[in-house]
């Protein structure tokens, strides 16, 4: 999973400046004999998504899958600006996907087989969510014995304030200027509670380290380099926990932002039929525990959300466009920098 930076995105989009989108990886799952090609552009890493692609291909023999991996902003750039031809776009950036759909870059799929899916898991019959991935706090075993980790943001602030020497330079979070996921989580946090800005203030005073990606933060926490990391992608941490030990995952009790990973069919898709089949396959992910297990992508699960009311799935809607507004964004980043970059 990669959450590349989005910073220049909006300006680029509006100014129409030519900047070719950057491809991180490109894999072709060839079918023989081949009867069709499905071009996928996705922000999910190869090892996460490969089992899903292979399972889908098993159900659709003859379909070659051309899998392009790009960051969230590159995906946006590819479709919104460059009109690159892809049949399906899978992204973890809900706000950017919403913008694609709102601006008319997505195709409508009326009879999507979203049978058991809740209404909030799709938008305009154009964006279809298939995972729910929380943003969590990671704490290092070196700093916290089991049961001593903070359970709310208030507790975390108190803890950090009580012992500044211990945590100085030992806490990490996303550099929201570079990470689309980090930006989405931070803006949602700022909306959900005013604790967020105090937390940023405290973290700034403690000289927090900034990261581009969840993977690096997980590694740093498990190494004991960091005492804790805030707003890490929970699904990725859970998958890593089996391999590398040394950290605990804390879901806050005040509120936990839950990001939905979504798929949409670009307006210029050339194999919309196969793309629709992949969407049906993805939205039925909750009926494939084997795939959930190997990919580490938690399927949409409304009962989980009902049982834990602290989980707040981010809702689709025009309000997701608010923080994509260039003025609003630069304001937000200015505030964020003022809080976090004090030294």
């Amino acid at each position, binding site marked *: 999973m990669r959450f590349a930076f989005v910073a220049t995105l909006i300006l680029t989009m*509006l100014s129409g400046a030519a900047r070719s989108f950057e491809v991180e990886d490109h894999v072709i799952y060839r079918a023989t004999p081949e009867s069709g090609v499905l071009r996928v552009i996705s922000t999910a890493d190869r090892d996460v998504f490969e089992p899903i692609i292979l399972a889908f291909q098993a159900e659709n023999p003859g379909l070659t899958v051309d899998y392009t991996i790009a960051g969230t902003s590159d995906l946006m750039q590819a479709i919104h600006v460059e009109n690159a031809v892809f049949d399906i776009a899978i992204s973890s950036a809900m706000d950017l996907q919403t913008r694609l*759909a*709102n*601006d*008319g870059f997505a195709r409508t799929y009326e009879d999507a087989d979203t049978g058991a899916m809740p209404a909030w898991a799709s*938008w*305009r019959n154009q964006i279809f969510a298939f995972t729910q991935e929380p943003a969590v706090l990671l704490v290092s075993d070196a700093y916290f014995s089991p049961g001593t980790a903070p359970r709310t943001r208030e507790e975390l602030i108190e803890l950090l304030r009580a012992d500044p020497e211990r945590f100085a330079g030992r806490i990490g979070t996303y550099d929201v200027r570079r990470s689309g996921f980090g930006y989405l989580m931070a803006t949602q946090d700022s*909306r959900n509670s005013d604790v967020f800005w105090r937390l940023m203030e405290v973290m700034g005073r403690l000289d927090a380290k900034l990261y581009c990606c969840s993977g690096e933060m997980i590694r740093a926490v498990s190494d004991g380099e960091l005492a804790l990391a805030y707003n890490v992608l929970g699904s990725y941490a859970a998958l890593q926990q089996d391999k590398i030990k040394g950290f605990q995952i804390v879901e806050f009790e005040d509120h936990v932002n839950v990001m939905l990973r979504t798929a949409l069919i670009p307006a210029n898709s050339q194999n919309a039929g196969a793309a629709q089949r992949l969407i049906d396959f993805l939205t039925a992910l909750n009926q494939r525990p084997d795939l959930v297990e190997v990919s580490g992508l938690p399927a949409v699960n409304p009962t989980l959300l009902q049982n834990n009311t602290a989980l707040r799935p981010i809702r*689709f*809607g*025009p*309000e997701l*466009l*608010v923080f994509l*507004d*260039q*003025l*609003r964004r630069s*304001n937000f980043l200015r505030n964020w920098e003022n809080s976090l970059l004090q030294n």
Partner: protein
Amino acid sequence: MKPRGSIRRRLFFQLSGVAAILSLAFFLIVRVVAERAAEGTQDDILAASATAITDSLRSEDGQVTLELPYSALSMLQTVHQDRVFYRVVAAGETLTGYDDLPVPDPAPTRGQPVFETIYYRGDSFRVVAILRPLGPASAATDVVVLVAQTRLGLEAISRQITGVATGVGVGFFLLATALSLWAAGSALTPFDRITGSVLRRGPKDLRPVTADTPAELVPLVEALNNFMARLRASLLRTEDFITEAAHRVRTPLATVRAQAEVTHRKLNKPEHKQAIREMIRAIDECSRSAGQMLDHAMVTFRTDSLARDDVDLVALMAEAVERLGPTAELKDIFIRQDLPSEPVPFRGDGILLQAALQNVLDNAIKYSPEDSEITVAVEVGEALRLSVTDQGRGFGDADLSRLIGRFERGGNVGQVVGSGLGLTIANDVANAHDGRLSIANNKEGQGVCVSLLLPR
């Protein structure tokens, strides 16, 4: 009479035509009003959103800046997941948002927002544009805020309203049509009632119609009553005339007959005697006709307002036999009276019944040979039956229903004097009492059986 048009049909078509027009008007009004309301609601929300944006505009060091409020877009969230676009233009330059969103023409002025429906990015959009001057009054910058939203919600509401309005309109029309059918029918029931009351009458009932009449029909019914009264008067005048005429003819005829008999006795030459005999026969026929005509007029007159007295049919029959006894004796005819010992009571006009029985019995005596036998009987069965059976010449092969007609005589009469009114009188009397006259040749042997059948 050939019917031209139908009031019922006309009423029905006019009423349902009115219903159709009303339904259509209802449908259009509901649609227009509801769509205006829905559009108004969307405009209000768009205006609120744009106002929220204008309210967050700031002027910092002469630079216009904006912190796009979260609520400005979140309030535009709809069930139908409409697309949303916005644009902020400061002094002609796009400050933020979608710079291809067109500013409406004419552009908004201060305090005067502009609403417009446009086609943009493949969809129909409702746009609001609000202008707000920013900065010091002397060097204010005009900032225009545009907010646009697709009309999916509006279209869904419109579809729903159209559906409901169509349903209600069609339902109203069907109901109204059914009601007009009923109304047309019920408006015409007085016609049926009056028609019924006229149809149910006997052929000679010329009394005025008294059925309940709605005001609109009063002139028609009055005209009808008037007409019937004139008809009745004219009929009565005719009957009066006949009675008068018969009277006037009978008396001089009696004198002529007496004189003829005297003359007959005096004459010796057989051819002269024969001539006088024929004359006497003609006179008899004439006076019989006059008498029967009188009786017939009397029957017509009395049936008009039939008396309902308690009479004993056995006594009536016995009286008829007694009256005609002498005539029968002249021909040595024996009248067997097959009468019950108990009286048979009946409500009716005794004089008319007596006249009927006498005519039937008179026929039996007239058309029977000498030395024969006549049986009169009164039976109480399903109906009351007063029968006279003779052993005479029978009707032959005459058309029996015709014999009841006025002045109709059979081919079997020979030298027997008669006018052809006897059975007519008997039949009229039977009908006046809701009964009937039955005439038939005897099945065994010769002769006929004529019976008066009266309801119990």
